[in-house]
């Protein structure tokens, strides 16, 4: 029914795009600058000064790139950075000590692999893959130029690892984007549901207003007949009863709607002049169109700021289309605050009520066009007032499941990645360097410990569980294993391939703390780095060269771990949002279902009411019923009270009010006169409580004679139901002891009348 801006439809995807790009570029810049800072101290063949100059230039490029990425200019900047990094890779023979290259400890290796990873977050899949291949190729070429053999460059040098890392990064990105699309679909669905519900509510309100206006007159007549104020000879009585019958039968006495009159009343300048006349249409359609035109013009007067509108009327085959356009400020339909949906709901509600359709198209600064169609075009509206809940999405039943499934997919991927890293790289390194260990068998203990934690994580993921209470002990255990493995190495094996825990320990932190806030993962990684630095100092390896190498490893490896953790955080945020959106949608659907049920019930009662009121009025008109007859008076009193109840309550009165009204009507059929009043709306009680409350009232009314008062009001987050009545002898209610559902009753008897008060206190949800 309402065209929505793309911003509303794809909010999450756009948010993820923006956020993902910013994270990726920032992370890449931080790693680039840190690595460049270490570069001159890692023994570059071209000398510290030349390498330093390159490093400074590269750091500057990083800042420039970051700035460009943030401002979004110039276009195509995403392609420039990988090219710069590829040049850096080719220059490795001059910039990095070949000994470090062979150990994958060169600073350029860190920058290249990080670029291949981060580029996946802001380039399309194919471009990202090509960039990764280009970077890996340049890196391998640089390794070969440094004198490494092809196999050495691919494995020990880490060229293959770059492609694996890029692929993992792409996988993460795809998971997050899919979760975002799911979230957007759910959000759009939720907005559509709420819009449809608002339109439906407006339609019902319009119908009620119509009933109320039509019956104001009949209710007034019967009220006074019921109160005995009409003798039967009044000169006005016949004419009034005639009018009452005419309105009840739907023969309106109002003059036919006139477009010229409505326009004149609106105080808006309308072009072209003179305005055309409505074509001949059924009365209810004309009334709805006229009301909708009035609302639309009122909206122009209030909000457009121009006081002028264009009105076009196109007669169609058996119908009409009316367009009202202004050149005013317009509004963003997505930003209209809740409860201020005046134009949207009132116009749409009126038209929907009469079988027509209203479309409002507006955008800030571009005016507003209201299109009224009667009858509604056959083509279903994109998000028209179809019954909410019928749009085919399972969201109401299982909120957020798609996002939760993706979250599980991410955990599974992470867990498998860690196992692959453990088996391929750690185990490989361990086998290749086993002879370095003073006691080779001991090295396996530490490996088995860490592998056990990774396998346990995999088991937890498959069981859809998290680490929970054993999280901190497990984290301490992992750090202990890493420390043990590090301490069992000879001092010259530190920060070398033999030091296999360095590359994987942080990853285990990502697994263990994946459902906690990011600071936990960061804390774990920092603890690990501090412990390893402590070991270096303890083992006398705190020399500048080793520290630089250690720095490069930390920047490269832990940067990757943090990037993965960040992706998980983004995915979790989206999952939470999706779940909330689905829950809100489900709540809206439930509300709407209740309202529809209540309204349907009211429609049935309206039909029954006509059946009771019309014979009464006809009898008064033709004189077969005398207003002075006590039985006629009683019938008139009952019918006027029924009318009043029917038209007074809103559909949001809920099921309790509806059941009470039905109960009161049953009592009235027995001849009891019931005055029912509902004050400020309260919470809707659960079905069990509702049954008990209605049961109390029913028992009282069954025992009552003469007249009774039933009152319902909200009090302190609960409900109070009161019945005051004269009861037949020996038929009093008994107080009901508290039954744990929060219901209390109080009974007062005074001067022959009994006052029952039933109080239900909603317990706090916690």
């Amino acid at each position, binding site marked *: 029914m309402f065209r929505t801006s793309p911003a509303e439809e794809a909010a999450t995807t756009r948010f993820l795009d923006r956020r993902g790009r910013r994270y990726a570029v920032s992370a890449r810049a931080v790693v680039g600058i840190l690595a460049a800072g270490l570069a001159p101290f890692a023994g570059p063949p071209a000398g510290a000064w030349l390498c330093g100059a390159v490093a400074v230039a590269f750091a500057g490029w990083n800042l420039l790139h970051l700035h460009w990425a943030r401002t979004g200019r110039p276009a195509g900047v995403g392609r420039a950075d990988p090219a710069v990094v590829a040049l850096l890779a080719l220059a490795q023979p001059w910039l990095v000590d070949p000994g470090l290259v062979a150990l994958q400890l060169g600073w350029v290796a860190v920058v290249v692999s990080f670029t291949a990873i981060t580029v996946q977050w802001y380039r399309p899949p194919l471009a990202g893959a090509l960039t990764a291949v280009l970077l890996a190729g340049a890196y391998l070429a640089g390794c070969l130029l440094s004198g490494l053999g092809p196999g050495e460059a691919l494995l020990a040098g880490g060229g293959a690892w770059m492609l694996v890392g890029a692929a993992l990064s792409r996988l993460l990105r795809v998971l997050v984007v899919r979760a975002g699309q799911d979230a957007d679909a759910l959000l759009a669905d939720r907005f559509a549901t709420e819009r449809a519900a608002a339109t439906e509510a407006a339609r019902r309100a319009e119908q009620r207003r119509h009933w109320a206006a039509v019956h104001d007159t009949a209710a007034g007549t019967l009220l006074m007949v019921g109160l005995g*104020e*009409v003798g039967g000879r009044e000169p006005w009585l016949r004419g009034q009863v005639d009018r009452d019958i005419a309105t009840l039968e739907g023969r309106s006495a109002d003059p036919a709607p006139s477009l010229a009159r409505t326009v004149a009343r609106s105080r808006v300048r309308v072009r072209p002049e003179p305005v055309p006349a409505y074509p001949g249409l059924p009365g209810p359609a004309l009334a709805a169109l006229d009301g909708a035109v009035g609302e639309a013009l009122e909206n122009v007067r209030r909000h457009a700021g121009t006081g002028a509108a264009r009105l076009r009327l196109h007669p169609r085959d058996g119908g009409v289309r009316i367009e009202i356009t202004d050149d005013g400020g317009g509004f963003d339909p997505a930003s209209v605050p809740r409860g201020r949906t005046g134009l949207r709901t009132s116009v749409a509600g009126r038209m929907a009520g009469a079988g027509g359709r209203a479309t409002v198209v507006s955008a800030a600064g571009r005016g507003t066009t209201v299109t009224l169609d009667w009858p509604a075009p056959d083509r279903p509206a994109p998000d028209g007032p179809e019954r909410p809940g019928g749009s085919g999405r399972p969201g109401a039943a299982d909120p957020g499941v798609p996002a939760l499934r993706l979250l599980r997919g991410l955990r599974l991927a992470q867990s498998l990645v860690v196992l692959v890293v453990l088996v391929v790289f750690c185990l490989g390194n361990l086998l290749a360097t086993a002879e370095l260990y003073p006691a080779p068998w001991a090295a396996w203990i530490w490996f088995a410990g860490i592998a056990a934690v990774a396998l346990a994580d995999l088991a937890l993921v498959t069981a859809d569980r998290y680490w929970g209470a054993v999280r901190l002990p497990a984290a301490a255990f992992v750090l202990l294993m890493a420390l043990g493995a590090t301490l069992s190495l000879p001092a010259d094996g530190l920060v070398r391939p033999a030091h296999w825990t360095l590359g994987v320990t942080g990853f285990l932190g990502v697994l263990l703390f994946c459902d906690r806030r990011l600071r936990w993962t960061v804390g774990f990684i920092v603890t690990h780095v501090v412990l390893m630095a402590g070991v270096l100092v303890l083992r006398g390896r705190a020399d500048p060269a080793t520290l630089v190498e250690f720095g490069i490893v930390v920047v490269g490896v832990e940067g990757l771990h943090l990037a993965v953790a960040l992706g998980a955080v983004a995915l979790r945020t989206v999952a939470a949002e999706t779940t909330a959106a689905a829950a809100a949608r489900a709540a809206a659907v439930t509300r709407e279902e209740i309202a529809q049920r209540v309204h349907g019930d009211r429609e049935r009662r309206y039909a029954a009411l006509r059946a009771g009121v019309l014979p009464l009025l006809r009898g008064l008109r033709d004189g077969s019923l005398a207003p002075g007859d006590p039985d006629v008076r009683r019938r008139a009193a009952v019918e006027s009270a029924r009318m009043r109840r029917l038209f007074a309550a809103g559909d949001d009165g809920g099921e309790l009010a509806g059941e009470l009204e039905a109960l009161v009507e049953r009592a009235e059929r027995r001849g009891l006169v019931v005055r029912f009043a509902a004050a400020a709306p309260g919470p809707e009680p659960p079905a069990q409580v509702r049954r008990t409350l209605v049961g109390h009232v029913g028992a009282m009314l069954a025992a009552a004679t003469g007249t009774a008062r039933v009152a319902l*009001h909200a009090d302190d987050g609960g409900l109070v139901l009161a019945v*005051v009545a004269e009861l037949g002898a020996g038929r009093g209610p008994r107080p009901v002891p508290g039954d744990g559902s929060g219901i209390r009753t109080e009974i007062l008897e005074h001067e022959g009348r009994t006052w029952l*008060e039933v109080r239900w206190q909603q317990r706090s949800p916690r």
Partner: protein
Amino acid sequence: MAAAVTAVIVDDHPAIVEGVSGWCAAADPPITVLAAGPGPEIASTGPGAAADVVVLDLFLGGSVPDLAVLRGLVEAGRNVVVYSQDETPETVLGCVDLGASSYLAKSEGAGHLVAAVHAAARGASYTGPVLGGVLAGDRRPERPVLSVRERQVLLAWFESESKTLVAHRLHLSAKTVDTYIARVRAKYADAGRPAPSKAALVARALQDGLVELGEL
């Protein structure tokens, strides 16, 4: 003895006019209906302009309450008893805020209407059970602060429609029940937009000793 109370009825339904006129004639002391008619002008021109009290139907031929008519009457210093089919809290509170002496639902019969007209003629307020329920349920941020007892009295009055029952249940005298209700109305008259008849309501409540200046 004060002069007889006079009233003008603004209602477009002949049965309502007939009924209200009948109640007024039978009232003790009697109320003289000076004029009655379907449009608001009946209250400001001819004999109706001199009436002590205006009995006003809010829905004069329309489907939305015409608060402008009420505002005009109140600003002219008239004492208005609103007599309406509409029991929605927004409408009721809107009328109280504008300065109506009383708001009665059409379902509230002769006794309440006569009492309301008598009170309005003295410049005082009258609160029927429906209005009492709405005031007790008022959750708007700008509402006046009611004491626990005042709320209890209002709700009991709404529930039972009987001041005898309220008095018996809360162990008060019937007069004290009236005092609590009148104090609530004085607080409402003292809150929000100023209007001549609201000021008069407060003045009346002070004069009658129902409230102290410090309580407002």
